């Protein structure tokens, strides 16, 4: 259990998907103009990462690997199956949320379909395969990674809201400044890299 908690902390802060691997940057930069929308997208990412990671783990272990039910190595189908799972899960989550919690649906609304092409989701699944996590670890990694992404996007949205009132050279305004800020935040997060949490 302590290992799982450690993995959660590690994937959320030390190996932050957004600020250490720079995954999901497109939506990270496009949707971080205000804290409110960033909050919604961050929640949706936690949700989808937490769901797709265990499902992709099961697909990879029971269907694709040599020890699975087909007894043959189907790993070349990995990319297609993973992205199909992610796309259909996002669609499913969208429908379920719309049915049972219209208020949450309204706050996530347009961000759910965007998540399909968020590389943090597919990247998370691919990292899970290359690091050979087991089922419980993949759940912990999914939730932790999602949480880290959430923290990062809310933080940068808050900074960008403030920087609107600063005197920035015209050509650097908006996008250029967002890149510089993300770089600085990445540098700050690199300070966490030395922390040793055990065997992961």
């Amino acid at each position: 259990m302590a290992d799982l908690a450690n993995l959660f902390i590690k994937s959320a802060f030390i190996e932050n998907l957004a600020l250490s691997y720079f995954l999901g940057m497109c939506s990270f930069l496009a949707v971080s103009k205000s804290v409110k929308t960033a909050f919604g997208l961050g929640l949706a990412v936690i949700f989808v990462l937490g769901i797709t990671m265990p499902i992709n783990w099961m697909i990879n272990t029971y269907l694709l690997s040599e020890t699975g039910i087909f007894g043959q190595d189907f790993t070349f189908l990995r990319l297609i199956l993973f992205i199909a799972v992610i796309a259909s899960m996002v669609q499913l989550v969208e429908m379920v949320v719309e049915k049972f919690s219209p208020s949450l649906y309204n706050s996530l609304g347009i961000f759910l379909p965007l998540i399909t092409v968020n590389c943090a989701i597919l990247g998370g699944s691919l990292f899970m395969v290359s690091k050979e996590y087991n089922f419980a670890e993949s759940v912990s990694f999914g939730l932790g990674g999602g949480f880290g992404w959430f923290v990062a996007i809310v933080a940068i949205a808050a900074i960008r809201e403030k920087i609107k009132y600063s005197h920035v050279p015209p050509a650097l305004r908006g996008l250029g400044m967002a890149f510089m800020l993300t770089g600085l935040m990445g540098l700050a997060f690199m300070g966490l890299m030395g922390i040793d949490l055990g065997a992961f």
Partner: protein
Amino acid sequence: MADTIVAEKKEASFSFGKKERKLLSDPLNDNNPITVQVLGICSALAVTTLFNKALVMSIAVVFVTMFASFFTSLLRNSIPKQVRMIVQLVIIAFLVTVVELTLKAFAYPMYKDLSVFIGLIITNCIVMGRLEAFAMANTPYKSLLDGIGNGIGYGVILLIVAAIREIFGKGSIGGIKLIGPSNEFLIDTTTSSIFGWYEPNNLMVLFPSAMFVIGALIWAHRAWNKKLVDIS
């Protein structure tokens, strides 16, 4: 009615005029995928530590955008609107799998180097973005050109960033030593190459420097091309 059919036929012909040239040249400057549309940043940051990696990645992306646009455009009239994302993703995933297996077979060290980022071409927003914005509404030939243009526009930025990062971070380009102390520096102090005093800056190899380099590129691009300046 007859006129429109004639016009359509003309559109579909494989001419290479001003319009087609614009499809290729627009993504290089006014509508660059990275510095203007801000698409496909993730891989741009991760693979630009070395020039060779960036080169392979650019070729892979040009290949994928080109054929993904082409095939999607061929199928555009028979894809139901509700499931179009999944259909597009399957087309892209198929092409990326082709690239991945080719690299695995013919350039295994490069495949290991690029690791998950080959797979992440699937979610590279350029591919998806061009499919949604262009290929779903245009003829296959035009989509092919648009795909090539955007792939190259992306590749050019990737190569510039990689060149800057490798030359300041390692003192070389594509593995060829250009500046900084030569390898035998400590044995024979007279054989130092040009700018022998330059100490390679390790920060440039780390992830955050890609952010700074691309930020500076955007700054330079917008200072030069004033109509792109963000006035909001």
